[in-house]
């Protein structure tokens, strides 16, 4: 487990954010989780613009959890920008969404997401998902060399 790994959580739903964070806590994972609540904010964060120009306060994450359905710039757009930007391209992006639609899944993978997870309805499910994310991406997966 990489305690120092930074996760960027992009979600417009506060409750989902709370549940996710809670699930991380419940799963005893104490990674630093940066939360942004819109696609625009996510891009600002990742490109270090606007309120997130301070890289020390807002360092580049090691993993991005990205919701698809967001007002304004949605998850697909964000994902597209990430994968089109050299410095961001190698950051693993996990789509975490309530949509199981084939279209959404296919589009996400086409753009370049690294994983696609459905938000579970139950809290217990959330915890499981978070655990699995951690286990896979920070334990099993050998990332690209920064």
């Amino acid at each position: 487990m990489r305690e120092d790994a930074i996760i960027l959580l992009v979600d417009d739903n506060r409750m989902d954010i709370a549940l996710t964070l809670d699930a991380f806590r419940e799963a005893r994972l104490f990674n630093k989780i940066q939360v942004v609540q819109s696609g625009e904010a996510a891009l600002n964060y990742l490109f270090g613009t606007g309120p997130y120009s301070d890289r020390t306060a807002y360092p580049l994450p090691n993993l991005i959890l990205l919701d698809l359905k967001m007002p304004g710039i949605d998850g697909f757009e964000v994902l597209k920008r990430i994968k089109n930007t050299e410095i961001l391209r190698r950051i693993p992006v996990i789509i975490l969404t309530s949509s199981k639609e084939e279209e959404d899944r296919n589009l996400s993978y086409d753009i370049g997401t690294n994983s696609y997870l459905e938000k579970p309805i139950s809290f217990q499910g959330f915890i499981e998902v978070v655990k699995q994310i951690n286990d896979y991406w920070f334990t099993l997966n050998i990332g690209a060399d920064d």
Partner: protein
Amino acid sequence: MKFTARLTALPEKSLSVWISLTLITMTAFCILCFGLFWVNMRLHHYRVEVGYLQKGFSETKKLEIKNKILQVKDYIQWVTHNPESALSAAITRKARAFKAAAAKGKTASDTSFGFYSTIIRSSSWYFKIPVVLLSQDGEVLLEDLPGPEESEKDTKMRLTKMLALASASVRGEEGRVFLFESGDREAMAGLAAGSVNTHIFPGYKVVFLIPSDRVRATLQEFILDTVSRMRYSENEYIFINTIYGKALVSNGQYNREPVDIAASGSEDWVKIFRVQQQSVKYPQGLFHTYLWRKLSPDEVDRKTSFFSFLPGWNWIIGTGFYEDEIRQVIRAKRDALRNQFVQDILSTVVFFLVMSLLSYLLARHYSRRMNRNIEIFSAFFRRSALENIHINIDGLAYREFRTLASDANHMAIERRKAEEALRNSEAHYRYLFEKNPAPMLIYELGSLNMLAVNDAFTSHYGYSQHETSRMRLTDLYPPDEKADIALLTTELTGHAYIGEWHHIKKDGTTITIETHSHDILFNTRRGRVAVINDITLRKKTEEEIRLLNSELESRVRQRTLQLEATNRELEAYSYSISHDLRAPLRAILGFSQILSSRHKEALNEEGRQYMDFIVEASSRMERLINDLLHYSRLGRKSLAMHTVGLRPVLMQVLHEFHQELEEAGAEITIPEELPGICGNETLLHQVFSNLVGNSIKYRRPEVPLQITLVDQSTPDAPRIVFSDNGIGIPQEHWEKIFNVFQRLHDESTYPGTGIGLATVKKAMMLQGGSVRVTSVIGVGTDFHLEFQPG
């Protein structure tokens, strides 16, 4: 000739002329053949005859002369042995001469004995026959004793005998010669002859006597005289020579004084006589051919003669013929034949002419009779078209013409019937034309003049009959179609449909028409009859319908698009509802779970129970939303249809339900073979999942679950029945159970969302199949599934 004149006058050789010609030709041919045959036969006959003459005539002639000589010899022999007739002839001759002499010198006053005696005495000497004059009583009145060398005594004795005989014979027939034996031994056989004649000197008997010494000489004289008269042509005569060289009969002359051949001075005669003398050695006679002078004309020719010796008289008797005679005969034959030829040819020609004339007359007669018949026929045929006539059969000659006439009459009757029928038919067609409800017109080909229109035309177009009669077909057409229709009419034949055109009525309105037309002979003018169909209204209606249809189509298309959009909207709506419902639900469930687990102690019993209710309700809502999402997602996916085996999919599903089925003690019956179908494996899986889940859920707890699959496929459609022994469905719900959220039982008895069977139905429909249910309460339910064939 009249016939040839007629022949040339004919424009064409008629049958009668041919028959005449044939008849004449045949006749001429027959006659010519016959004539040729006849002439040929004649020629043949001539050739045979000439050949026969040339070869055989000589021999025949030889035989002829030989026979002649033999006959003469026989005659001489006969006369020699039967001298009566010869002597009688001699006496008769003498008596006749004596009588003539007596008559010459007699006068009325001289009927005295003296005169008679003078006559007798002179005659007796002259005729060298003793004559005795007797009275009627037989008294010898006068006797002549001519023999001066006779002795008195002999004469008396002879005379006495003679007289005795004569007296005896006075009573015999007048003039009959009688023979008697004379006493003279030296005389020939002692035979003498006498004859009594009473008519020479009336009142006296005159007896002529031939004394025995004179009998032979008399016979010889008689024979030679007779033979000398036997000549049958100028150059054919019988000659008699004595073997001592005296010619008794020569050149057909009796030599009273025999000619001495040796003294004649003719060497040829002497030479020939020597040959004649040879005949003494040949009892059969001798032929000899030599050159001899003819008597007439005076020329030398080859002569063939026959010589024969006559022993009693020591004569050589013969005759001959000249070869010139054969030539003459042949010449004569030829001439005769030539004459015959000419005659034959002449008669043939005459016969030919007569027969030709006859056959011409015959042919003319029959051809006239035939022509008369033919004229009757031709008059009949000329007039029968106009009048109701028939041929008088009795007026016709010959059976053939009568038969023909009866047939012609029959034909005329039949034709009149046919004409009647035609007239009726024409009236019928006229009626059809005039009263036809469709406008009709007849126009002439070429000029395109309107010949006739019917009532429907005038009423439809507004033109009167009189107006149309002055119109042309093109006048009906608008200016831009006139040229085309004029051109088209030149190409139409038989029945034709010429499509749509435009006509202008009298009032100026343009109508759309289509016409069917056909060739017609109208009052001897070639034209076409056209039936006009005014399709203006129809076209208008069609156009309206077409517009309506296209409008309708676009409306349907629009509506369909709208519906599709709505449908998509609805689906998206239901999807997003389901989707968006999940977020608050997740919050409710998540946080209520966190509360119930992490903050349980802070709640009292009631609070905990309510907390549990919230969790339970949220869970149920989650299932609902999941099922709804699932259901709505069915239609959104693109479906790949292919052949799928029913059995593998079913086995997979049963395997997935393995645990539940075991708990239910399920007994499952599936045929070994299930048909392959055309469908989508995922949808099929969904169908069977839901059905099996349904069976498990609605089983009767008191009995073990039974699931049975029966294959009821037809060749066109795979069909299976999925049966269970569950609680069953009341019939009034058989349709409803396939609706979304249709539940028959409360949640607590049979938990479920009510979407399962709706999903089954939708999945079946998406695969082109169908599902229906039959059920008996408390016994079980049958789901009938029908698929597209694989």
